[in-house]
């Protein structure tokens, strides 16, 4: 942790330089103001207003009336709300750990001192540059049950591939598979984390006679935990906001049988297609609370498993 300057010191500054400090502060604020105003206008105010809207029948086109907790009550009786929560949690529970596992494994492989490593690193990062919509279309072809490359290859080794996106049981696993395609971003962060681990630790471990597995378990992984922690929190927040891929894949319908209706998709549907912006606002706040709570839990448990080098 960086130690912050002691606030008492400010008082000790003579008044002339204090004025100068004020001036630089003001200039600082001036430069930051476009951002600050943007944050205020486009995030803070709409967010606060959506709290109010969540208690109304606001439809965007009409102000709507105050109905107290009715939106929230109605949500708890809405089967599709629960279905979308189930789908979202299902996705998060499988996707986030898998993305961490494959992300770390990939980063460790890409961290080896092999000739031409830059090429491999580029290859694994490239998929993240493909826009989600294009990625969805691409995978639609790959996973097509009848003409798709994946089932074609499975057929070659005698496996009768599933209907993938066409069936309820395989639609979410397919989506997880597709999403893993985009872990390049996380890999870059893991790589940076790996680069931060001092070489001396490995040398010391070497002298102690540790093998590769022991070095990984006792040196690499513990020292990578701050990065894993960061990716865990960001990955979880991202997974809860899953939208573009399933929306594009199912043309916004969440087919088959709503197995692809994710929370934010249903929120969008309510807000912009059913004009139930009040209802959608209530959903947004429930999502906010869930994500905040989970983030809080991760933060609390992190004290036990995240190791910072300084400590």
């Amino acid at each position, binding site marked *: 942790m960086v130690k912050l300057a002691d606030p008492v010191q400010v008082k000790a500054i003579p008044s002339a330089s204090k004025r100068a400090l004020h001036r630089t502060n003001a200039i600082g604020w001036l430069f930051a103001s476009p951002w*600050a105003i943007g944050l205020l206008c486009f995030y803070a105010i709409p967010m606060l207003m959506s709290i109010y809207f969540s208690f109304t029948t606001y439809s*965007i086109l009409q102000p709507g009336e105050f109905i107290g907790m009715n939106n929230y009550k109605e949500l708890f009786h809405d089967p599709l709300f629960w279905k979308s929560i189930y789908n979202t949690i299902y996705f998060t529970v499988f996707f986030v750990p898998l993305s961490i596992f494959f992300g770390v494994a990939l980063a460790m492989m890409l961290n080896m001192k092999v000739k031409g490593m830059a090429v491999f690193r580029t290859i694994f990062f490239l998929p993240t540059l493909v826009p989600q919509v294009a990625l969805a279309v691409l995978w639609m072809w790959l996973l097509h049950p009848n003409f798709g490359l994946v089932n074609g290859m499975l057929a070659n080794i005698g496996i009768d591939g599933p209907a993938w996106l066409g069936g309820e049981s395989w639609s979410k696993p397919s989506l997880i598979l597709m999403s893993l395609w985009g872990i390049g971003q996380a890999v870059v962060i893991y790589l940076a984390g790996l680069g931060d681990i001092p070489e001396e630790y490995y040398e010391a471990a070497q002298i102690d006679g540790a093998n590769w597995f022991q070095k990984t378990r006792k040196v690499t992984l513990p020292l990578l935990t701050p990065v894993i922690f960061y990716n865990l929190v960001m990955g979880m927040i991202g997974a809860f906001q899953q939208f573009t891929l399933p929306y594009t894949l199912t043309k*916004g319908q969440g087919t088959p049988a709503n197995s692809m209706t994710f929370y934010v998709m249903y929120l969008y549907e309510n807000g912009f297609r059913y004009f139930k912006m009040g209802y959608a606002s209530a959903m947004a706040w429930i999502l906010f609370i869930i994500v905040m709570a989970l983030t809080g839990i991760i933060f609390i448990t992190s004290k036990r498993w995240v190791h910072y080098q300084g400590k």
Partner: protein
Amino acid sequence: MRRSKRFAFPILVCFLVMVLLVTACSTNGGSSDQAGEGITTVTMWHGLTSIDLDNMNKVVKAFEEKNPTIKMNLVYTESNEGSDQKLLTAVAGGNPPDVALFDRFKVGTWAAQGSLTDLSSMAAESGIRKEMYYPFAWEESSYQGKLYAMPMDTDSRLLFYNKDHFKEVGLDPNKPPQTIAELEAAADKLTIKEGKRFKRIGFIPWYSQGWLYTWGWAFGGEFQDTATGKITANDPKVVEALQWMTDFGKKYNVEDIAGFTSAAGTEEMDPFISGQVSMKISGNFTVKGIEKFKPDLNYGVAPIPTPTGTNFTTWSGGGSAIIPKGAKNVAAAWKFLEFLGKEEGQTLLNADSQISVIDSVNDKYGYKDDPIMKEFINILPNSHNRPVIPEGQLLWNELASATEKATRGNGTPKENLDRVTETVNKALEKYDK
């Protein structure tokens, strides 16, 4: 107290910048209204591309020649969900375009929200009459007896069948199935299944445009009680239709069919075009795709089979032009809508591309001499439009979901449709106040 002083200046600066921004935005909004002396600029939002845009430009040119005091300003807003949101926020923000192209399906919802300009009296003055259009087109442009949109183009749905496949299995390629029983028999003959996999499938009721609307009407059902306005998705005939779809699915095993109907549905991958499906329900809008991807496909179109082999029907949607509430140049905008809705505008607008909402215009195009297109035109006088209700989208989604659930054995057709009826009617209650 020194603390508060330290923040006073930056806050003041923020405030001033904000005021500047807000005023800058608001002056910007009004600037596009007037261009030059006595000339009114009408801004129109559209999502047209290629031939449709060319045609629209022709309409605009002809219109401006006739109305030298009006200038049209066409603004492209993408034609998907994004354009909806743009229009929505523009209307909510009180700064909408003068005209917007609009899916007629949404007229009921937007009109119920009070976001569309009532065109009834202007239409009456200009001699725009109900009788000029196909009944469904006028119906879908109106909400509670008032006209809110100018219908522009339309479509219809028919049975597409592969004539080569028909010949191959000994069916008469010039006698497509007319009754549901004939359809089933043909489907049975055309299907080739090897183990779990279909090499070819004769027919899938819910594939492409085989929505429950399609079959419900084909079976003689009604989705709305015209007297009360209540939704009747559980009309016995609609239930019968869904029951038939479900039984059909059971016979061939729904999960096995999923491969053909899965999320992937682009034109290039259309299994009808690639010969993996022998018959399908689709609209005139796919004819161009067949011409493009497989021009030598030997196929025909026929009315959607019904239980009796009579009373053929279909349903239609299409585009329209609206004047949002809060538009600044309503009179000039109406001038354009009037031109668009009358024969001259219609002729220019839909040439070589769409079906017009005026029957005589379709005559002019020679559609009735084209073996494929004539079927789409001939069925139009008997076509339906989806119920014009504030919850049209909800009803659509609920029907789609009920179809999927029932055909996958998740509840009976009756149970599913009872629930649709209840859900939608409950959602409609709040508009009755």
